[in-house]
């Protein structure tokens, strides 16, 4: 494996801020992060916007319009901070390219043009998209499935930090990726900044866990944390997005943007470091097997924690691949009952729907306000007894490969207005195509990755 050149400022800490935790997150988080990075003398801005489903949805958009298929809120995210980033050499590294990094790059060129900024140097990372017929054939065989390749919506490998680091070393202002793994968005800049070797597993582990702490945005800085009266978080309406200070030895600190709400302490840090982790000795990414069994989180000051004790082991030999495919329709319909015997009326309404169409498809019945999300699809929890409730929303959900069958749920719940129990109101229905995911791992050689600088295309 090659070692990237060490930049002159290698011993300075690297500051990486993250201004979104998913596609659909607040779009106004980046301003305070960028201002804080400027005050610190520079750094890198991440936007993490990809989930398992997000990429498949983006692929659907790309099929409809070859100029789409990137993060739909891209302009809202980048527009307000692009000038400041270019003026202060704050590089943007993001997976908001989704299914179409090239088109995302063109959109950013257009924003720069509209704002009369200099033309940014934009690199796109390629290789994650495995949608070519030959690749799909290989993947479906590997998955051992007989689904029709025509039903496949997206197939992407999770790729790592190396190409991001190379692009930054090559002078990119902005690096746009598709399915790069979330923590690689932070590790890549650290590799470029410190010149870490790709097989320095300890450093790869440290940079990866710094990225892990950032990748869900405010989930480390007071978001997804507050329980009133128990775990208070100030200023949740203007919660600050997080910034990591990564040092040459791999230790790092997490704090949040200046002049924002939110909270960073040992408890918010501990909740996030374990988020979506299975075996803490084996947190797998394309770059490393990170190990947090000896990790330690301490408060260094107000809204600032230090993370130490991260270890790293050799990276997995293969890359993870997700294949998303069309799998019928999800139908959901709701109606509310309130007042005396509301719960009993909602139960009767659900039973009525079940008697009429339960033989056509499996139905899930929720009594929102009594028992809903705690229950399993089989309704076992509900069978153990229902709490009293006087304001209950019946929800009926089901999936079917045949749209006309799935639609019957919508019809049956709507008809409860007249044919159902007394006092039902507020029917809402939705019918959505359903996507399923299959996962496997494949040899790295099957995923040739790289990066290239994009030329601006004038319309």
């Amino acid at each position, binding site marked *: 494996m090659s070692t990237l050149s060490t930049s002159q400022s290698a011993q300075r800490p690297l500051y990486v801020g993250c201004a979104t935790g998913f596609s659909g997150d607040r779009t106004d988080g980046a301003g305070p992060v960028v201002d804080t990075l400027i005050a610190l003398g520079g750094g890198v801005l991440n936007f993490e916007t990809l989930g398992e489903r997000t990429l498949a949805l983006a692929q659907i958009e790309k099929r409809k319009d070859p100029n789409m298929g990137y993060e739909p809120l891209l302009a809202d995210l980048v527009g307000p901070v692009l000038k400041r980033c270019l003026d202060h050499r704050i590089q943007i590294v993001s997976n908001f390219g989704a299914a179409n990094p090239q088109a995302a790059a063109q959109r950013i060129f257009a924003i720069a043009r509209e704002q009369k900024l200099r033309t940014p140097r934009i690199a796109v990372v390629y290789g994650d998209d495995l949608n070519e017929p030959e690749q799909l054939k290989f993947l479906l065989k590997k998955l051992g499935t007989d689904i029709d390749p025509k039903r496949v919506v997206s197939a992407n490998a999770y790729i790592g930090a190396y190409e991001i680091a190379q692009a930054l070393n090559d002078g990119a202002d902005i690096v746009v990726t598709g399915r790069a793994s979330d923590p690689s968005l932070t590790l890549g800049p650290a590799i470029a900044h410190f010149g870490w070797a790709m097989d320095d597993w300890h450093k790869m582990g440290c940079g990866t866990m710094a990225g892990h702490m950032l990748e869900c945005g405010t989930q480390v800085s007071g978001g997804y944390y507050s*329980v009133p009266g128990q775990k208070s978080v100030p200023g949740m309406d203007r919660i600050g997005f997080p910034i990591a200070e990564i040092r040459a030895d791999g230790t790092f600190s997490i704090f949040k943007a200046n002049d924002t709400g939110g909270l960073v302490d040992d408890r918010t840090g501990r909740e*996030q470091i374990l988020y*979506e*982790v*299975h075996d*803490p000795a084996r947190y797998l990414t394309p770059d490393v097997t990170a190990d947090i069994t*000896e990790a330690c989180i301490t408060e260094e000051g107000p809204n600032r924690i230090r993370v130490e004790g991260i270890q790293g082991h050799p990276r997995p030999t293969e890359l993870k691949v997700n294949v998303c495919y069309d799998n019928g329709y999800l139908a959901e319909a709701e109606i509310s009952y309130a007042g005396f015997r509301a719960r009993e009326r909602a139960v009767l309404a659900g039973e009525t729907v079940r008697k009429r169409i339960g033989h056509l498809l499996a139905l899930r019945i929720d009594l929102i306000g009594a028992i809903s999300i705690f229950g*399993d699809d089989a309704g*076992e929890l509900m069978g153990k007894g229902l709490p009293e409730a006087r304001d209950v929303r019946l929800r009926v959900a089901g999936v079917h490969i045949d749209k006309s069958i799935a639609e019957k749920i919508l019809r049956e719940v709507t008809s409860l207005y007249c044919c159902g129990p007394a006092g039902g109101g507020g029917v809402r229905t939705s019918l959505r195509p359903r996507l399923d*995911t299959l996962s496997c791992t494949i040899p790295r050689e099957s995923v040739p990755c790289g990066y290239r600088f994009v030329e601006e295309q004038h319309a």
Partner: protein
Amino acid sequence: MTSIVELPLYQLAHGRAGDKGNTSNISVIAWNQTCFELLVSQVTEGKVAAWFGYRHPSKVTRYVLPKLLAMNYVLEGILDGGVNDALNLDSHGKGLSFWMMDMPIEVPQTLAQQLSIKEYSKKAD
């Protein structure tokens, strides 16, 4: 002799649930060292499997992280197939950490009095 009282887990710990496919992981992070030791002895894999029994986990694994005062529980097969398959409104199982937090824990009376989350000390229901 110190008498024992029963408190919900949230009096001794906080936590968060995450999902990958059909597997949920739920962290249980003790408020302090004393709570941590009590939880290590009581919140066993078997007890968690039973507490989530109605969702039929195929496997429950506990990882103990003393330096974080934390335990990480990995519950396989409890998400009705996961984010794409489940009919649950909360197909990620994000709310499941709060099911965990209601688990009853036996606590010495002396410790129960020290626990800082007074707002939650009232007996529910």
